[in-house]
């Protein structure tokens, strides 16, 4: 049953998490963007903040109202919290004859994240599939994922860069959350999505939401869906992309692309990472680390003496064909959840949707794929 939570009660929710030993992370304004950091109290939330996004441009403004979630997203949300940008995997220590190896697992604490979007949940499902459901589950990701409590907030203010409707991943959070809120003028409607959510909700003791509020919430989300301007040419572009590997557009976009890798690192589903050793000066110990990598990086496709993807056009093509194409082979869906981050945070203002249209348009079977 949908409940109603007046805005001041949000602090109570945070207090419940604190009592239960959770670290709370939520959106905050920092350095001109919405970033997810440890939340001290509701006062840290971006009250009255609006975002305006275009390819290569992100600006915040202050509306002066009481809304806390009236923006679309920031450069990151869940990914860095679970798939660490850089972390040690294990440590080798020299011995008389060889070395010993010791796992370095992250210290984790139950984590509650407030203000997760539908696209973030979709991306999380994909990362879960990659890191947890394969033949070799990743213990580092698993450790962080274990006690995660997710409070989704349905998106009511998508940015011009958003296209989650087109990918089918938003703006309405359908699954994967413990609680889902929709922000109204004076408070939130609350739905629960799990046993854990139910327990927390019970502690909050909220009244059922009036039908008018439920309708207002639904309308806000419907309206959010209706105002999205961007789309992808289809849900499955695998064939369209792989039959256009020599399209002139690859050269065109390569002339603009900086090969800086921002798109892949803000993408909530990209999972590439590099491993390497960092030995101590005296050689007595060596820490084996991993960190986010990207198919735009120098060494991503390097094999001794040979660059498999020497030029920017090869790298951009890898990004797009993987994200929107071969992802289907690997994980049964597209790797894009329509969050628009790769557009907004591309310093060269490259718009993935526009490139996809330019390359796939004219591939006849698009309609059928949808």
């Amino acid at each position, binding site marked *: 049953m949908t409940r109603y939570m007046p805005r001041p009660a949000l602090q109570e929710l945070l207090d419940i998490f604190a009592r239960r030993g959770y670290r709370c992370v939520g959106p905050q304004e920092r350095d001109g963007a919405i970033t997810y950091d440890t939340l001290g109290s509701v006062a840290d939330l971006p009250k009255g903040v609006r975002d305006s996004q275009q390819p290569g441009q992100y600006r915040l403004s202050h509306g002066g109202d009481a809304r806390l979630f009236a923006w679309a997203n920031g450069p990151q949300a869940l990914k860095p919290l679970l798939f660490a940008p850089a972390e040690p*995997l*294990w440590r*080798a220590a*020299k011995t008389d*004859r*060889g*070395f*010993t*190896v010791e*796992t370095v697992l992250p210290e984790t604490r139950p984590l509650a994240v407030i203000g997760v979007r539908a696209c973030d949940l979709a991306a999380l499902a994909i990362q879960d599939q*990659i*890191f947890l459901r*394969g*033949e*070799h*589950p*990743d*213990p580092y990701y*698993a450790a962080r994922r274990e006690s995660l409590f997710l409070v989704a907030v349905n998106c009511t203010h998508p940015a011009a860069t958003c296209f989650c409707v087109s990918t089918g991943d938003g703006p309405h959070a359908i699954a994967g959350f413990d609680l889902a809120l929709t922000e109204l003028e004076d408070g939130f409607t609350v739905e629960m999505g799990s046993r854990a959510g139910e327990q927390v909700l019970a502690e909050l003791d909220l009244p059922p939401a009036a039908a008018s509020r439920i309708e207002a919430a639904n309308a806000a989300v419907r309206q959010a869906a209706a105002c999205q301007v961007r789309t992808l040419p289809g849900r499955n572009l695998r064939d369209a992309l*792989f039959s256009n*590997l020599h399209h002139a557009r690859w050269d065109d976009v390569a002339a603009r692309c900086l090969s800086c890798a921002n798109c892949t690192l803000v993408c909530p589903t*990209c*999972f*590439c*990472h*590099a*491993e*390497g*050793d960092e*030995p101590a000066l005296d*050689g007595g110990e*060596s820490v*084996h680390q*991993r960190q986010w*990598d990207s*198919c735009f990086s120098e*060494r*991503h*496709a*390097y*094999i*001794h*003496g040979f660059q*498999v*993807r020497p*030029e920017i*056009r*090869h790298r951009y*093509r*890898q990004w797009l*064909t*993987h994200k929107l*194409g*071969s*992802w*289907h*082979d*690997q994980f049964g869906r597209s790797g894009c959840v329509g969050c628009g981050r790769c557009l907004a945070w591309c310093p060269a203002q490259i718009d993935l949707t526009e490139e996809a249209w330019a390359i796939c348009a004219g591939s006849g079977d698009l309609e059928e794929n949808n």
Partner: protein
Amino acid sequence: MQINPYLPHEAEIVERIQESDAVFTLRLRFVEAEMRSRYSFWPGQFNMVYLYGAGEVPISIVSDPEDERLLDHTIRAVGRVTDGLARLKPGDRVGIRGPYGRGWPLKEAAGRDVVVVTGGLGCAPAVSAVNYIIKRRAEYGRLVIIQGVKKSKELIYRARYDAWARVPNTHVMLAADSGDVFWPGHVGLVTDLFERVEFDQGNVLAMMCGPEGMMVTAAKALAQRGVAEEGIFLSMERNMHCAVGLCGHCQFGGQFICKDGPVFRYPDVKGLLGIRGF
């Protein structure tokens, strides 16, 4: 706690063989008895070999899967880690984790003729497959082993080839792009030899490993000689860090070389083979 797929296990170098100027074989033994008994692999699989303080590299397993004592890796010194590995001596230790990947289709090959085509160091991953067949010689048809090198002095495993050539119903054909006077084999491309190769067109399986250009040409030539594309297998190579399908480096279109390969059925990779950038 879950097992950690990233942890290497210590292995000691029991013997080191210099195969050619830059190629050497390390014969390894796990330090922990438990690993020695637990570890088993299938021909064509590979390990991640860790050099202390430097990093890990994927290296195919050369030894006989039934040899429980030693694990052999033949390595060419080409860069940071492999150069470092080249400096190790017997008694030194490396880290091993694995085995990884899908190996050669030796079950599927039973009862058929087998053509093994390798180029350069591509011969290494094929060795254990050949040994496997030779141990079960009666279960397979004709065995043709074709190996090509650029220069004749780069040929390694000469003694092995000689021994294999003496096995019944087994043919060894060697090719070098340029050979010296003592070169017993063909001077020219590996693919030239295909015209001379004899096998049962309808019941043959080909396994290939080597430079991609060579494999593409060879696959086409074999297909032309009537070998079914489903019966042609290639072992592929891409940059690799984790070997368990998570790091993303070894992608080849939709395939991960580390877990979907390194050995692929030709039709599964044919579409992207030879296209620059994949």
